[in-house]
C-alpha cells in the first residue's frame, strides 16, 4: 500500500512537472506570437508549421551556445544563481490543487502533490526564495549592471511581498483556511473569491507582476538601462534557465491566482457535468477548466507586457509602499468589518 502510494505520487508529480515545463516552453512561443500580433506582425513562423517547433529550436540554440564564466566572478555562486532560480520556480506548483479527487483504475487519487495545511505560506516561502537566484547570480557576475539588476530585484521583491501578503490576509478572513485545497473547495460552482475580494485580487495581481519580474515591473533586467540586468554576464543554458524560470514563475503564479481568486477547477454547472461524465472525466474537465484559466492569466501577463511601459524606479517604490500597502491594510479592515457584521460579532 505504501509503495503504491509512493508510486502514485511519483507519477503524478512527474506529470505535473513535465506539464509545467511544457507550458513554460510554449509560453516563450506564445509570448513572441502575442507580441507580434499586438504589433501587427506575424511572429516566428519558420520552425515547423506556424512556428510550432520554435521553442525546441530555441532550446537547442541555448544548449549549443558557448558557455562563458567571467574570470573575476565567483564561480560557485555564478552557477548556483540560475540553478536556484529554476529550482524555486519548479517547486512552487507542489501545493496547487489541479482538480477534484479522481477515480482512476479503481482508486481515488488526489490531483494535488501534497495538501499541506499552510499551502499559501509555502507558496510565499518559495516565491521569496526565488529572488535569491537573481541576487546571487547578479552579485556573482562581478558586473555593475548585474549588481544593479540584483539590487533592484531584491528591493522590488521585498517591497511587493508585503502588500501581497496583506492582500492574502484579507482573503484568509473570508476563507478561514490556509490550505489551497480548502480554498478551492469553498469556491464550488461560481462562488469565486474574486467576487468577495475584488480589491484584494487587484493588489495580488499587481504584486504577482512584480514578483515574476514582468513588465511594468521588469526593472531587474530592463534592457534600456542595465543591458541585461542580472543576467548580463550569463550565456548558454544558464541564461536559458534564468529566462525559463521567469516563464515557470508566470505559470505558477497564474495557477495560484486562478486557485485563490478564480475558483481553481470550479466552474458554473460543475455538479451537473460531474454527474454526466462520471468520477473519471468530471475531474479531468475541471482540470481542463483550471488550465483554461491559467492560460487566460498567462495571456493577460503577456498582453500587459506589450502594452504598458516600465515604471521608473522611484515610481515603483512609491506604488509599492505608498499606495498598495495602505490599500491592502484598508482592504483587511474593510473585510474584517464586513465579516464581523455578517457573522454577528
Amino acid at each position, binding site marked *: 500500500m505504501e509503495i503504491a502510494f509512493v508510486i502514485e505520487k511519483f507519477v503524478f508529480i512527474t506529470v505535473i512537472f513535465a506539464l509545467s515545463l511544457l507550458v513554460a516552453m510554449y509560453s516563450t512561443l506564445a509570448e513572441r506570437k*502575442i507580441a507580434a*500580433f*499586438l*504589433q*501587427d*506582425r*506575424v511572429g516566428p513562423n519558420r520552425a515547423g508549421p506556424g512556428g510550432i517547433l520554435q521553442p525546441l529550436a530555441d532550446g537547442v540554440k541555448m544548449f549549443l551556445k558557448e558557455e562563458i564564466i567571467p574570470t573575476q566572478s565567483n564561480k560557485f555562486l555564478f552557477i548556483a544563481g540560475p540553478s536556484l532560480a529554476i529550482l524555486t520556480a519548479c517547486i512552487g506548483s507542489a501545493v496547487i490543487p489541479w482538480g477534484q479527487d479522481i477515480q482512476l483504475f479503481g482508486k481515488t487519487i488526489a490531483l494535488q502533490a501534497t495538501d499541506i495545511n499552510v499551502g499559501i505560506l509555502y507558496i510565499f516561502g518559495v516565491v521569496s526564495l526565488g529572488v535569491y537566484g537573481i541576487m546571487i547570480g547578479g552579485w556573482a557576475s562581478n558586473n555593475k549592471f548585474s549588481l544593479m539588476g540584483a539590487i533592484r530585484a531584491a528591493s522590488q521583491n521585498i517591497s511587493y511581498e508585503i502588500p501581497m501578503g496583506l492582500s492574502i490576509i484579507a482573503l484568509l478572513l473570508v476563507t478561514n483556511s490556509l490550505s489551497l485545497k480548502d480554498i478551492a473547495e469553498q469556491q464550488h460552482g461560481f462562488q469565486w473569491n474574486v467576487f468577495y475580494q475584488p480589491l484584494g485580487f487587484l493588489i495580488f495581481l499587481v504584486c504577482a507582476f512584480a514578483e515574476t519580474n514582468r513588465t511594468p515591473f521588469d526593472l531587474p533586467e530592463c534592457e534600456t538601462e542595465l543591458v541585461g540586468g542580472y543576467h548580463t554576464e550569463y550565456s548558454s543554458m544558464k541564461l536559458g534557465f534564468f529566462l525559463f524560470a521567469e516563464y515557470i514563475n508566470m505559470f505558477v503564479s497564474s495557477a495560484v491566482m486562478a486557485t485563490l481568486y478564480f475558483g481553481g477547477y470550479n466552474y458554473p454547472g460543475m455538479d451537473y457535468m460531474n454527474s454526466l461524465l462520471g468520477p473519471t472525466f468530471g475531474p479531468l474537465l475541471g482540470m481542463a477548466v483550471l488550465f483554461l484559466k491559467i492560460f487566460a492569466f498567462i495571456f493577460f501577463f503577456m*498582453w*500587459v507586457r*506589450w*502594452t*504598458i511601459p516600465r515604471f521608473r524606479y522611484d515610481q515603483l517604490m512609491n506604488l509599492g509602499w505608498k499606495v498598495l500597502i495602505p490599500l491592502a491594510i484598508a482592504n483587511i479592515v474593510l473585510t474584517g468589518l464586513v465579516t464581523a457584521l455578517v457573522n454577528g460579532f
Partner: protein
Amino acid sequence: MEALSNRKKVLEQKPMNFWERMYLPAIFKGMAITFRHMFKPKETVFYPEVQREFSENWRGMHSLKRDEDGRERCTACGLCALSCPAEAITMVAAERKKGEEHLYREEKYAATYEINMLRCIFCGLCEEACPKEAIYLDGPIVPADYLRKDFIYGKDKLVEKPLTELTK
C-alpha cells in the same frame, strides 16, 4: 503675438484627478487598443518567398547594356567615371580589332570596367552622364558578401547577358 494659423493646440496642464491618478482607466484604454491590433491585417511581407515590388525609379545594381545586335554599347569614354561623385568606377579602354565587330558597337570599348559597390552611392549620375545609353541602374539589390575585394564588380557581373542566352 497673434497666431498666424489655428493649428497650434494649447495644452492645459491640470493636476490629475482621482481617476487619472489611479492609472487603471488609462491602462484599460491602452490594453483595449493593443487588443484591437491583434485582429488587424498584418503588414508582413514573407521575404524569401514574396518580394516587395520596387518602385518605378528604383536604382539597383548597374548593368552594362548591349544593343539590338547583342554588341556592347560602352565605348569607354569615361564620362561615367568622371561624373561619379563617389569615384567608384574605373575602366581600361581598348581598340576594337578586326573581326570583333559583332562584340563591340564602336571602335573603342572597355577592356575592363569595374565598379566598387562599397563606394557606389547609387545616385544614378553615371546613368545620366552616359552618351551611349550603356549603363543603367536597373538591377536587383547588390547582395552582401564577406570580403571587400568581392564587392568590386567587373564586366563578368555587370555586362548584360546576350540576347541569345536570355532566350535560351
